């Protein structure tokens, strides 16, 4: 793997370019889109940093919950089917704990300042 620069450094460089050089020259909708672009890069950055650990943790929880091995995608699809049929519900503490932990990790990547994240994590 190439590590100089790292992918995170490249993202930081592009964010810096948009914020400091490009955005000041834009107005109206383009200025708005530049802010969205920076947000998108910041989410990608967080996903690179935290995504793999979050998916590993989710996969472990799913294996314990569903009682068998499998990759994340298959296990998640199985959980979806069981929630849709009502075979599993949020009344099951293990289900509730898995969904809660997973969505907290996901919102920390997607929108870490969202008020609903603070409300749920008590922060």
């Amino acid at each position, binding site marked *: 793997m190439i590590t100089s620069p790292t992918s995170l450094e490249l993202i930081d460089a592009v964010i810096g370019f948009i914020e400091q050089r490009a955005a000041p020259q834009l107005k109206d909708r383009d200025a708005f889109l530049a802010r969205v672009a920076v947000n998108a890069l910041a989410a990608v950055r967080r996903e690179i940093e935290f995504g793999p650990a979050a998916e590993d943790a989710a996969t472990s929880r799913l294996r314990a919950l569903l009682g068998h091995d499998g990759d994340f995608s298959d296990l998640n699809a199985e959980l979806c089917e069981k929630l849709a049929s*009502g075979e599993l519900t949020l009344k099951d503490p293990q289900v509730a704990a898995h969904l809660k932990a997973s969505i907290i990790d996901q919102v920390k990547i997607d929108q870490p300042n969202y008020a609903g994240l603070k409300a749920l994590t008590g922060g």
Partner: protein
Amino acid sequence: MLEDALNALSLGPVSGLRRLSGGASQETWAFRAGERELILRRKPDGVVGGGNAIGLDKEAALIQAAARQGAPVPPIVHVCRPDEGVGEAYVMGKVEGETLGRRIVRDDAFAAVRPRLARQCGEVLAHIHATPLEGLPKLVTSDAASELEKYEAVYRGLGAKRPIFEAAFRWLKDRAPTMEKPVLLHGDFRNGNIMFHPEAGVAAVLDWELAHLGDPAEDLGWICTASWRFGGAKPVGGFGDYEDLLAGYEAGGGKPIPLERVLYWQTLGSLKWGVMCLIMYQTYASGADPSVERAMIGRRTSETEIDLIALLEKAA
């Protein structure tokens, strides 16, 4: 061209015509006609159909009907006929105020009026819901079960695998309330579509394009849906409390609604907005709209999921 057509309406000499931003499915223009400040709401050229929108002639008729109930709405000045060359459109009086949720929830200018807004919203909804249905344009009727069916079909069609949506669909379907008597609903009563004045509070209810008949609690639940709080901590639009919304609804003559039923529709609201975020992302994925905004809105779906978990956990 548009200016010529507006001049021909004989509202007064037209000046200062300018397009206002916002409004994805309809154009909004501001102009002066003589001494009057007016707003033109117009369907964009070349747009066939309008998704779920009811059509601008129906919108104008509903606004006039709601006005007769005492609901604050912009005064309708003229509904354009096809032969007038303006397009599908109507002209209304300009109402002073602010629609940006962020400002209403946070700006000091609204600090004094903010504690009164939830109650006012309840009163206004009671007035809208009291509109006699006789003589109204034909509107779709929907209840919780039909809304869930519609959004679940869309969600399944997208092929997404989101366990919290699955749990929410199941939970909501198992508890879908039966509708007693359908009433006129605004259908999109939330920050962004309500004009607030820093002193008077609710000044006008705008954007009636999603109006339909249904369960009164739907409109109350939608303004409590967390996606419209703009960082505000309080449940009603980020600015108020449930008790005030419900008390205002009763004071306005509305039949009392249990909080539980509002929370049900709030939960359905988060699910619906979550599916809508996926639909908007789909316009990027399909290549129809290549903007980074459409791509990124897909990452707001998880916000609705965290709100759903909080609601479902509390209800369990």
